[in-house]
C-alpha cells in the first residue's frame, strides 16, 4: 500500500467498522484489533509511535470497568487499541502533506484542511516547547520531574508559551503572503484501481463485521 489515498481510505474504513461494532462483540473486536497489530509489526513502525497510545486507552477501559460489565470494558479496550494503532500506522507512514493532497482531491473544504494542517504543526510546537520548559526546569532544580504542585505553573507557562509562539508563527506566515482563501493546496492523483481496492477493503470489513463471531 504505497498510495496515500489507499492508506487513508483503509484507516477511515477500519475506524468506521471498529467504532460501530456492538458493545458486546468481543471476538469481532479482537479480530479487528489484531489486523493493525500484525501490520505494525510487519512494517516495523518504531515503538515510540504506538506505545504511548496504550496509556489513555487503558485508562479509558479501566474507567469503564467501574460502571459496566467486564465484557464491555474488554471490547472498549480492543476497539481503542485497534483505532489508535491504525491511526499511528497512518501517521507513521504518511506525511500530513500527502494526506491533505488526497483530502483536497476528494474536495474537502479548505478551511477544514488547513485546520488539520495547523493542528499537526501545533502538536510538534507543543512538544518542542514542553521539552524546552522541562529542560530549563531540570537545570534550575536538579530534579528530573516537577512535584504535583509545580505542574500547574508549568502547564500554565506551557500554554502561554505555545499561544505566544503560535501567534508569532501566524505573523511569520502572513508576512510571507499566506491567506487561507488563496493559499495553494497540493492535490493527488487517485487511480481507478486504487478506488477499486478501497471498495474491496470496505466490503471485506463489512463482511467481517457481519460474521457471527
Amino acid at each position, binding site marked *: 500500500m504505497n498510495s496515500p489515498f489507499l492508506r487513508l481510505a483503509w484507516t477511515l474504513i477500519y475506524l468506521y467498522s471498529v467504532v460501530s461494532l456492538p458493545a458486546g462483540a468481543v471476538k469481532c473486536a479482537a479480530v479487528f484489533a489484531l489486523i493493525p497489530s500484525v501490520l505494525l509489526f510487519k512494517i516495523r513502525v518504531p515503538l515510540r509511535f504506538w506505545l504511548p497510545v496504550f496509556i489513555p486507552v487503558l485508562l479509558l477501559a479501566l474507567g469503564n470497568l467501574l460502571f459496566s460489565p467486564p465484557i464491555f470494558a474488554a471490547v472498549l479496550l480492543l476497539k481503542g487499541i485497534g483505532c489508535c494503532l491504525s491511526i499511528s500506522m497512518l501517521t507513521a507512514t504518511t506525511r500530513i502533506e500527502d494526506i491533505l493532497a488526497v483530502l483536497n482531491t476528494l474536495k474537502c473544504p479548505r478551511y477544514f484542511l488547513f485546520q488539520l494542517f495547523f493542528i499537526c504543526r501545533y502538536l*510538534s510546537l507543543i512538544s518542542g516547547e514542553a521539552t524546552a520548559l522541562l529542560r530549563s526546569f531540570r537545570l534550575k532544580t536538579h530534579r528530573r520531574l516537577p512535584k504535583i504542585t509545580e505542574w500547574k505553573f508549568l502547564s500554565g507557562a506551557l500554554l502561554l508559551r505555545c499561544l505566544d*509562539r503560535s501567534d*508569532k508563527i501566524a*505573523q*511569520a506566515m502572513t*508576512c*510571507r503572503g499566506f491567506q487561507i482563501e488563496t493559499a*495553494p493546496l497540493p492535490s493527488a492523483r487517485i487511480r481507478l484501481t486504487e478506488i477499486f481496492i478501497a471498495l474491496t477493503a470496505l466490503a471485506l470489513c463489512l463482511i467481517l463485521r457481519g460474521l457471527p463471531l
Partner: protein
Amino acid sequence: MITIKNLSFKYKEINVLSDIAFTLQSKEKTAILGANGAGKSTLLNILAGLLPPTAGELEGVPKKTGLIFQNPDDQLFMPTVADDIRFGLINAGLDEEEIERRLTHVLEQFRLTKLRDALCRELSGGEKKRAALAGILALSPDLLLLDEPSSQLDPRGKRELAEQLALLPQTMLIATHDLRLAEQVCQNAVILNNGKIAAIGPVFKIMENDSLLYQCGLK
C-alpha cells in the same frame, strides 16, 4: 518613497513609540539604532502591518514587504530548511521551476546548500538566522525590514551578511545595535531613545557623535 508621519504606539497604556516621523527614499538603506527596549522591533512590526499604529500614518509602504524577525525560531515554522524557504515561494504562486531556481540560489547565497534537508529545530542559532534570511530574500520583497540581522552570526557570517545586504537593491530598514553593520550597509540612520527619535541623518555623521551614542546606550 515611504513616509512615516507622527507615528505613535502604545502597548496597553504604555507609550512605546511617540511621534516618529521620517522618510525613506526608494532604494535607500536606513539603520534604526537604539538600546534594548527603545522600540525598534515595534516600529518594524508596524511597518510590516503586524501591529496597527495607535496614531499617525504610513504612506507608500509597498505590498511586498519582507520582515526578518529578531528571533529566527519565530520565523522558521516548516520542518526543513528547504520546506521553509519554499513556503513563501509557493504562496507567491510561482511555478515549480522558478521555485527550485530561487531555492537553489538562496541556499548557495547563505551557505545552506548542505543543510537543505536539515530540520529547522536542529540548526545552530546562526544557521537558523541565515535560513530565516534566505526564506525572506527568496521572495525578493520591495521593502526589507530586518530586525537584528547580525545577532547570533559569527564574524565571517557578519562580514558576509554586510556584503550581501550592501549589494541588494531593495529599500531597507535595519534595526540593530551593531554599529559596524550599520556603517557598512546603510546610508542613513535613525536613533531611537525611549520610543522617540533622538537623532536622524547620514550614518557617518551619527557615528562621529560619540556623546549622542553614549547617551542612547549605543556605546
